[in-house]
Every structure is written in C-alpha cells, then in structure tokens.
C-alpha cells in the first residue's frame, strides 16, 4: 500500500520535510499503527509519534481519530493542534 504523508507546522520543522511517499508494510492499517511505525525511525520521530505529544491526523483532508483505516493512495497529514483565527 502506497500513501502520501504530509507534515505541518512544528512537526514539519522537527522532521525537516513537508511531504513523502511511503510504501507501507502490510500490518500498517490505520493512523495508530502508522504513528507507531513512524516512531521507530529515530529519536525525533519517537518524540513526535510515541504519544508524548498531541499529534492530530487527517486523511484526504478530513480530521480523523487514531483508529481510522488507511487505504492505498490516501493522503495522510500529521499536525499539532490548530491555532488559527
């Protein structure tokens, strides 16, 4: 399964890029397991995605919770709580 992942704001600055294509292993099926997968990439990633920080997720431009399933071709975005207005 191939997905596009976008990062915004503080998270984008921490990982140092804004977008990537990821070929997911078969056992990664939702936001929760994707976060765990990303957390294994190293210290910066573990800090962000192991649950210490609030990281919101969207799939195809819709806010979703961590149990939401991911499908081939999805655009997944990770970002901190929003601060507009």
């Amino acid at each position, binding site marked *: 399964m191939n997905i596009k992942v*976008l990062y*915004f*704001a*503080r998270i984008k600055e921490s990982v140092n890029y804004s977008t990537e294509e990821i070929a997911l292993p078969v056992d990664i099926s939702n936001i929760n397991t994707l976060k765990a997968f990303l957390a294994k990439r190293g210290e910066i990633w573990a800090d962000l995605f192991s649950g210490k920080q609030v990281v919101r997720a*969207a799939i195809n*431009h*819709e*806010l979703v919770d961590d149990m939401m399933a991911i499908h081939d071709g999805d655009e997944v*975005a990770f*970002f*901190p*709580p*929003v*601060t*507009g*207005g």
Partner: protein
Amino acid sequence: MSVRVQTADFDVAAALAEMRLASADIGAVVSFIGQVRDINDGDTVNTLTLEHYPQMTERMLASIEKEAQSRWNIVNSLIIHRVGTLKPLDQIVLVAVASAHRGDAFKACEFMMDYLKNQAPFWKKESTPDGERWIEAKTSDTEAQERWQQS
C-alpha cells in the same frame, strides 16, 4: 456561503456591504474581525506567520459554514482568513453572518469562530525579540467549542 483563504488584506466595509445588499430579507449582519496583537505572553510580537493546509482549510471552513446553517436561520455567511506573514494591527480573519433577525446572526458568528479556532488547519508562529516560537493551542478555545455541543 463563501470561504476565502488569502495572503492579501481584505476590505471589511466592502465585504459586509456586498453581503447586506444581496437580499432584502436580511435584517441583521454580525461580523467578527481578528487582528494581530503586539504583545503575547508578555513578549513583544514583531510578526506573526500563519501556515495552513491548503485544500483541507477550505473544506473545513465550508463545513463549519454548513453546520452553522443547519443550526440557525442564516441567509448568508462569509469567512476570510489570511495566511503568510502579518504584523501587529493587521487583520487576520473576518467571519460575517447575515440573517433575518439578529439572534441567529450573533449565535452563528460566535459558533463559526469557535469552531474555526479548534478545527481549521491553521498554525501561528510568532517572531519576538528572543526568536521565533509556535503558538500553543489554548484549553479555553477547546472549551469555547464544547459549549456548542452541550446546547
């Protein structure tokens, strides 16, 4: 109903006149303007930079308008939100609602602003004499949105 996300400033008087004059069944227009403050958490703010998630932003703002329309009798609504680098006294956001009677417009305007604060994918970074920092989300903003879920 319309939504605009832009770097350019906006003319509130022109936007409100256009909304008001579109229909004679409008009896009330309520608007909210947000502007950049020069002090935050005790520090001088030189500039404020707004980042957003294009496509999702427009979609989320449109869904907030739609939700307001389902709750109150609204004739029209408008959200303009700026992105990019702003300075103190610059306008950030305009939320305006037109309705037959004032009650609907007042409530819907506050509702839309509370939801925008909690759901629209914008992030603010401020530049102070000590450097740059991301603004943290406030619990009070979350509570402001939750009020609308109880009623």
